[in-house]
């Protein structure tokens, strides 16, 4: 390893918690691009990269859905970068014919204009029915009425050759109007985001291939006070295009047990990304209670905690991170924003002691003085 090698970095901005950066329509993409540039290898999830109609493909970014991200962080799954996935398209039978056609046209467009490999296409045998829910914390959640129906259709796509799956389900139009208005004006939580994550978690858990979700929704009337962070969801008929682009280069997911069972293990491991390769994890202050973050803390992966207000207050103090002693606290770094986080990643990547960059700077202490 040389100091110019990439420093694989995990960027987490949890879905459905209204983060100031990343709580809207792909509005963390600029931050992700910056961190990818600083690290040379950024692993992040659809909530960060999906901007409705907007997207940004970047060879330094690995697009990894949340459930697989948890498995990766805990060391259960390795990531195998690929040139291209064959993205199967799974459509909910609850989509009206015009809305379904819009999504098929987006998929056709991605083949014709972007060169993606999309197909086969499958429609569920009946509507899967979405329930939107909100937790006491203000986070968005939800569930689906027909998980077996969804899974059966997804399994058929995988059997037919899909190596990744984009799923589009019909979301209720009658969801809370005030919540939607607040979200579009940049003051609320994305009320549909939580259940989107649940759907993709469910499919990845059962199929272990990259999956991501786009909601099927009727267009909303124009809002003259629209926050720019939500605009990516207002400029088209579907949110599918960003999902297809993300999945088309998503890494394969390889279970640890699969590697052990095969020959040439050393060669394989050298071409895969594992949690042992991680040089840093970047996460919002207040959102430190997620599964992937806890896995990274267990493994002493340097944690860069960024001020990025959302509805949660599961802070470093509440999680007892501020009271860690000895060498452990050296793995905790704080940044006021993602620009500062990029600086910290650059310092870690190039082996520049972060203490040397800050003032005041303390004199060295002799052990025998203590």
């Amino acid at each position: 390893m040389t100091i110019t090698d990439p420093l694989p970095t995990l960027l987490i901005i949890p879905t459905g918690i209204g983060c100031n950066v990343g709580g809207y329509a792909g509005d963390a993409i600029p931050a992700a691009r910056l961190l990818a540039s600083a690290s040379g290898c950024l692993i992040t999830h659809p909530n960060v990269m999906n901007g409705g109609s907007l997207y940004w493909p970047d060879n330094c970014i690995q697009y990894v859905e949340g459930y697989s991200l948890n498995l990766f962080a805990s060391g259960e799954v390795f990531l195998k970068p690929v040139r291209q996935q064959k993205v199967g398209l799974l459509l909910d039978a609850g989509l009206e014919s015009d809305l379904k056609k819009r999504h098929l046209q987006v998929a056709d467009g991605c083949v014709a204009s972007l060169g993606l490999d999309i197909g086969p296409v499958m429609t569920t045998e009946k509507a899967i029915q979405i329930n939107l829910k909100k937790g006491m914390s203000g986070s968005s959640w939800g569930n689906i009425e027909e998980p077996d129906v969804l899974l059966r259709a997804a399994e058929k796509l995988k059997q037919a050759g899909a190596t990744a799956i984009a799923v589009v389900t019909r979301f209720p139009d009658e969801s809370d109007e005030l919540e939607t208005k607040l979200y579009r004006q940049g003051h609320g939580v994305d009320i549909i985001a939580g259940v989107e994550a649940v759907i993709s978690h469910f499919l990845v858990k059962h199929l272990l291939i990259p999956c991501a979700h786009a909601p099927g929704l009727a267009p909303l009337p124009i809002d003259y006070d629209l926050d720019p962070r939500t605009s990516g969801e207002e400029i088209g008929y579907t949110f599918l295009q960003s999902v297809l682009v993300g999945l088309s280069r998503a890494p394969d997911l390889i279970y640890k047990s699969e590697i052990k069972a095969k020959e040439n293990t050393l060669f394989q491991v050298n071409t895969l990304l594992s949690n042992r390769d991680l040089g840093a994890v970047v996460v919002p202050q207040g959102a430190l209670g997620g599964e992937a973050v806890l896995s990274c803390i267990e493994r002493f992966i340097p944690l860069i905690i960024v001020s990025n207000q959302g509805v949660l207050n599961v802070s470093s103090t509440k999680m007892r991170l501020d009271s860690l002693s000895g060498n452990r606290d050296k793995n905790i770094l704080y940044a006021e924003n993602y620009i500062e986080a990029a600086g910290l990643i650059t310092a870690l990547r190039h082996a520049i002691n972060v203490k040397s960059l800050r003032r005041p700077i303390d004199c060295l202490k002799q052990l025998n003085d203590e």
Partner: protein
Amino acid sequence: MNLEFIELDLDWPFELSLFDLKNYILSKLLEYGEPLRWAITSVTTHSEKKIQLMSIEVVLIINQDKGKGINSELS
């Protein structure tokens, strides 16, 4: 199979290290079903009781027969 969203509170004893917290939570969630997506969504401290209380929000996979034992008050 069903997917259920529930919210529950768990004690976080002071003697339980942060480094063991994930497995502790998972072991508690498994009593209700198979955790699909979860997060700690608040932590409150009761210094007089030497305990912290965590709120967990979670979507569980419940197989039909196992689901009969779930406490609906948690939902």
